[in-house]
């Protein structure tokens, strides 16, 4: 089922299926390794709608909530 990274649960793995945003957004997000097709794991979530901590090929990246709405994922 398709959902955005914002709905992802801690400890689960997801495959990125779509990045919905302009070129700058795509460049910024892929520079951190978040490519379409990549499998990522949610490590942590900050409270109060704070950022998500994502494990991408063993590098850890904090992604702000407003950005997670633009990253579409499916459960692996």
């Amino acid at each position, binding site marked *: 089922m398709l959902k955005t990274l914002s709905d992802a649960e801690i400890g689960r793995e997801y495959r990125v299926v779509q990045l919905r945003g302009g070129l700058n957004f795509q460049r910024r*997000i892929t520079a*951190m390794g978040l*490519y379409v097709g990549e499998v990522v794991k949610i490590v942590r979530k900050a409270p*109060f709608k704070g*950022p998500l901590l994502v494990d991408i090929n063993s590098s850890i990246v904090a992604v*702000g909530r407003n950005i997670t709405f633009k990253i579409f994922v499916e459960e692996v």
Partner: protein
Amino acid sequence: MRFLLVGQPNCGKSTLFNQIAGYKAIESNFPGTTVSYTESKFMLNNEAISIIDLPGTYTILPHDYAERVTRNYIFENDFDVIMNVVDASTLSRGLELTLELLEMEKPMILVLNMIDSAEAKGIAIDEKLLSEILNIPVVKTIGNRGIGVEAALETAYNTACKGTVENSIRFRKDVEGSITEVMKCVKEFIFNKRFAAIKLLEKDDYIVKKIILCENTESILVGVRRKIEESHGINSAMIISYERHGLAMDIFERVAKFSKPKKNFTEIVDDILMHPIWGYFFLAIIVFAFFNLVFKLGQPVEGWLTAIFDDLSRYLQHYFPTSQFIGSIISGTVNGLSAGIGIALPYIFPFTVGLSFLEDIGYLPRIAFLVDAFMHKIGLHGKSIIPLITAYGCNVPAILSTRNMNNESDKFKTAFLATFVPCSARTIVIMGLVGYYLGGNMALLIYIIDIVVIAIMGKILTRVDKEPSPGLVIEIPSYHLPTIKSLSQKTWFRLKDFVYVAFPIIIVSSVILSIIDYFKLTNWINKMLSPITTFVLGLPQKVGVTLIFGIFRKELTLIMLNQALGTDKIATVMTKTQILVFTLFIVFYIPCVSTIAALKMELGTRKTIIISLTTIVVALIIAFSARIIGSFVY
């Protein structure tokens, strides 16, 4: 010869650089205020080598200021070899930059750094195979222990002597087909034509401008872009990134062997420090302990320093009395030195060391993670917290560091709010007046009021400047024990802004203040300011001149207040409300001259004027409200 150190953020590049600069340097050139790379010279095989540590960048397509510095340096300067530093524990991502750099076909070596942390993560890398695939030398290093550094330099030297390299790595067939077609359009470029074609597909305006196309080929270019975009379904600028990503993953899987990772230290610590509840608890403790330590340790040191300068100034007055013009200039200079050193050494220096320690150990990005949600409420995101914390030491480096923000709007908002943060100079005033006469709790209240004002101003700014913040995307590195060298380099990097920007201004303004005093302009200034001081704020007319002093140097208001009122027992001549009103006004009104200079450097004149005028309005509102509330309470 010139070696370039290029790598992604957190790859341990600077630690490696410090190892080289530390044991071989004949001269180390620390960065000025406009450039942010570091250069060091050393001797190798009887030849003078200069090595340049460029800011970390994920790709040569920059997203922020630091990354632009790196790209522009590569394109605007000559160099003999690139030492591409990669964190072995995140090799797959690091290789994307490696592949991009290889496209330039410049002499290059790969420095596989932090192999110890890769091993801890259960990743073993076959460097011989990697070297074969990439067709460049690969050297393994552990930067913080200096292992492999010597070998890396030798290898870089030998590679530089050999000259250009050939890059045989190719993308998938259809992409290569498009590249070949675009290559036909390229007439001239400082690097090879294939690289030019790739950059034309990637659409980096800065690089594209440097490419000279053959006549009437624009339409071919547009056609090729359209064709490949149709078949891939994404922007041609992204196609190349995906190609590199795919290649990097393939190479990584070929050269890496995996075993079970150890439960690493970082994860264990993060379970506590990034915990949804305990994380904030420890954040509060760490910040509170940090500020207390710095200012408690600083106070006695400041006392000693002021005593030394007081002696010096008395001694000089003996020969050059302040009643003479030359004497007043000299006394102004000494006062300036005294103030600059009296603030820098006891407060700003330990504050900066502490901040650099938190950065080096890896805690700052974690603070950004923890506070991001709150920062969003005031229209910013987590990354802005770092300049704001820096501002508690001194506003100048804080404002200059906003250049690392991702866009202009974030930069403006962060710099604006940073000017409201009470720096060490203002802390001296708060402690010396409110803390001393009204008690510690009232002093704490001022800090709380300050944070509330910053939040409200943030809200207002987002109403005015509607551009949405691009949001937080930040790598959270593993914890690392800082080395003395990298700590001192980071400390200097922040401190130099104070030394080069603020310090000269402090001295010059001290001289100006002496001249004001010499020509006895004090009474005139007091009268001019009386509408504000007496009418609006209900303060004694005599404090007027201290406000002028405060523009030059905030902490001077405390000393000058004693002088203006003719007593060091302020409570005998000012009511509690007046002390509170005065302090609040000092905390908020107009940034000091050094801060204004920093604002002008980063944001230009117009925005600087807007910020300065706003602070006066805010200060008047806050101080006037305090006067009204105070009249009921006291």
